[in-house]
């Protein structure tokens, strides 16, 4: 049996070690925000953070996640709370600024790709708090194994939301 850390909690896994992390999260651990899109790392619908780096959970086996920290959008509020020394998100209605921005800017349409989009945005903003529009476009297009695809065409809204989240996250900083 394998134990992996998901959104700050240690979870025991019964699935075979070669099972893609995506199926383990969704089917066994009921962490359902990453979606199956292609199974080929070509779309980004299944993205999660693995030790802070965006990976495609459809091609990462669960054994590769052992000893590392898996974060999905369910875990973003707590991640933000820890980073900012705020009271635990479990006892407050806290949202990660990326989530706040996604709501404020009314980004999702069908929303199927948006969990992966928010994961990508979080990865970007943690390393680059004030990205330019070109840096945002590059992050979602060329930085990973494939572009993050949205069929509803919400790319414009995503750019605006990342900029909005950047403002929220850098508030009060020089």
């Amino acid at each position, binding site marked *: 049996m394998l134990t992996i850390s998901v959104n700050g909690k240690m979870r025991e896994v019964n*699935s*075979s070690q*070669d*099972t*893609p992390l995506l*199926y383990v999260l*969704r*089917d066994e651990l009921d962490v*359902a*925000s990453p*979606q*199956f*899109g*292609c*199974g*080929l*790392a*070509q*779309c980004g*619908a299944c993205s999660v953070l693995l030790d802070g780096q965006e990976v495609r959970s459809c*091609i990462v086996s669960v054994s590769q996640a052992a000893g590392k920290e898996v974060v*999905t*959008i*369910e875990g973003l509020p707590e991640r933000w709370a820890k980073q900012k020394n705020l009271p635990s998100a479990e006892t407050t209605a806290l*949202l990660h600024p990326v*989530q706040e921005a*996604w*709501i404020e800017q*009314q*980004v*999702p*349409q*069908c*929303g*199927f*790709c*948006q*969990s992966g989009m*928010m994961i990508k945005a979080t990865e970007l903003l943690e390393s680059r708090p004030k990205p330019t529009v070109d840096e*945002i*476009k*590059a992050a*979602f*297009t*060329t930085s990973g*194994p*494939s*572009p*993050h*695809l*949205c*069929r*509803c*065409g*919400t*790319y*414009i*809204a*995503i*750019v605006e939301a990342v900029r909005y989240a950047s403002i929220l996250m850098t508030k009060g900083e020089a």
Partner: protein
Amino acid sequence: MEQLLEALTADVYGAKLTRRGFVKAGGTLVVGFGLLRGGVARAAVRADGNAFDASLPQSWIEIRPDNTVLYRTGKSDFGQGTIYTAYRQIIADELDVTFEAITTVVSADTDTTPEGGGTFGLLGEGTPNIRKAAAYTRQALMQLASQHLGVPKDQLKTIDGVVYGGGKQVSYGELVKGQNLQLSIPVTGDLTSIFGLRITGDPPLKPASEMKVVGKSYKNSNISSKVMAEEIWVTNVKLPNMQHGRVVHPGTLGSHLVEAGKLDRTKFPNTQLMVKGDLVAVVAPTEWEAVMASWQVAGTTKWTEWKGLPGKDKAYDYLRNQSDWKAAPVARGRKNKGDATAAMKASAKKLEATYRLPYWKHAPIGPTLAVADYKVDGSVTVHTHTQNAQALRGQIAMMLGTSLDKVVVKTYSGSGHYGRSNGGNAGAEDEAVILSKELGKPVRVQWMRNDEMQWSTQSPIAFSDVRIGLDANGKIAGYEIDHFMPAFQDDRMIGAVIAGLPTMDAPSEKGRILNSISNGASDIWLYDTVANLDERAHGTYQIGQKSSPMAIGLRDHSMRTPGQFQQNFPREMALSEAAALASADPLQFRIDHAKDERLITVLKRLKQESAWETRPTPAPKATGSSTGVVRGHGVSAMLRSGTYWGCACEVSVTPATGAVKVDKYTIVVDPGIVVNPEQLKRQVEGGAMMGLSIALHEEVPFNESAITAQDWLSYPILTMAEIPEFKVVLLHNPEVGTMGQGSEAANALGASAVASAVFDATGKPMRQIPLRPAYVKKMLDARNSDTNKVPPNHDEYNDSTKPKTGTPAPSDV
């Protein structure tokens, strides 16, 4: 009690208000439809797959004693957000309550929602129903208030859920408290048809000037629940004992099964192989085992050979020369007039051109998925993501040879698929039902990415021949167009077809609205000064449908603006070419040929908002052989379901490579009443970006046997790096009512503007999309006499300007 009930039976503009009794706690006013028209047929599945309801659905609107409101709709959400925003706003205004008072939206389950119908044209088609339901309800509440307050109804007024009159007041909630009230409103139509039920009668509606909630940018509650990971997606549905199914689809679009592959039981001990007719599938308790077992079985399953398709490179030749265009009647444009042929003969300058549009996939990011739970009593519940739950219910009942009351369809959030399931199914639903019935357990079927690309329906291929004659003043004297497109609405359930089970008839000349092979003149003519106009639309069978031993071939289905995109592109591109013949500015050329004031307003505003430089097209320095970058601008216009659109864009073209970059995009839209500006703006942006994707990239590759796209590399779509500077201008026009059409028309509008901008930049007409570099290069290099013959003949997507993608194979896992 009897007397009281009688006393409270009242006629409300043709609806019937009754008090069913008193209750100790709670109380509601429920607005449903009664059997006023009498004789509702029950549980009979008709030959075309449609049926009246078996068990009466629930109410449209419920007024609760705490003064909150619940509303139900048979429509679902496919990312438009309309049922959570615009519908709520329209109901709030018509009912005279606040937006926040409508606390609950129940949608698209066949056992709990009224009206049915497809999720399309939500505002234009759907607004009359919800407005009338709310208007009847408000009148019924005023009726109750009149009795309660002892004030004549005509002396009452309503504000934010309270009725005032004679110096007294009572809230809606107080009026229903402790009572069980039913308002039965008159309806007509067919619950499981593509259009569903329509509310009849004429309750008094509020004028636009009295609307307070409509017109404001309320947020979509469904977005919050998705962002906070609280949404229940169809992908999350889990049932006790549920098995994971994967289908091994046939080797070609015309193959029968020879022999199902042997399942390796040592590797997949918990998997079962299932065969029904030509349908091969595996089911397993875990998803990964099902996936791997399906790959193993697929590798050894044998299919009959079939080569009945022309292949992509010969598709347009095949369509023109080998398709039977006499099988369906020719449809004529509604505005046809004069004698276009005679006008053409007398014209000094003429344009004769052929325009081509390929097959596109709906290409949802998530493949089709359904969970079916077939019970021993012969009932089945299907959990899925569909645009028309009632129609799917009718189709499943037909496949099982059972009555409608045995089938329930539950709808959840899922990956948008843009029209593919407006007739009921998206692909996996029937397969899940077949497997669940055979296995006696709930089965979840999710297609893999290759199934999604190769076995789903697509938007049909099309071409158009245009002839335009100009008079001595450079005005259009005559316009003739022939549109050619195969049947575009094949709603047969593919699993049922493969398994040999009953499903609706394939498209044919005998077909009706959902399975006709006729084409219609669906792009409304806009340029009313043209005296001689002849528009004709020709339909035929789908390619491969008749030659496939399985009657499959390339199945088509409506996508966003079915038929209209395919007719608007040739018309608008030809208009820009005609402007060039007249040495005119293409935007002013359109204004000069228009009479409709709404169109003229949109185009004039477009000129201003896009900072349009008025000059003849092509650009003075246009060239298709420069070594640098050339720039141009283009324009297009469209009328769809009462909404007027104008689009202008600017492009940069690199003639050496054929690369096209769209720099700036401006859309002006007059949709009548703008119900929710922010939501409409987002819908227009999204639709336009998908349209840009179609204009630049999309084309379904196929050989003589099958669709050869398998993934996002072989069917590329737009990426974020390609988005242009974008501007949407909303023209609120309350006098004309609510027309809607946010993302659909925005999707169709842009391709001709982009193509005409490339023409403007290079002087070479772009008569087909997608504008992939290799195609653009070919069109730039074509001699003028060959412009109509440029063959669409390359299969590999070798656009070096597109971001590189390195894709690990599944075996890397």
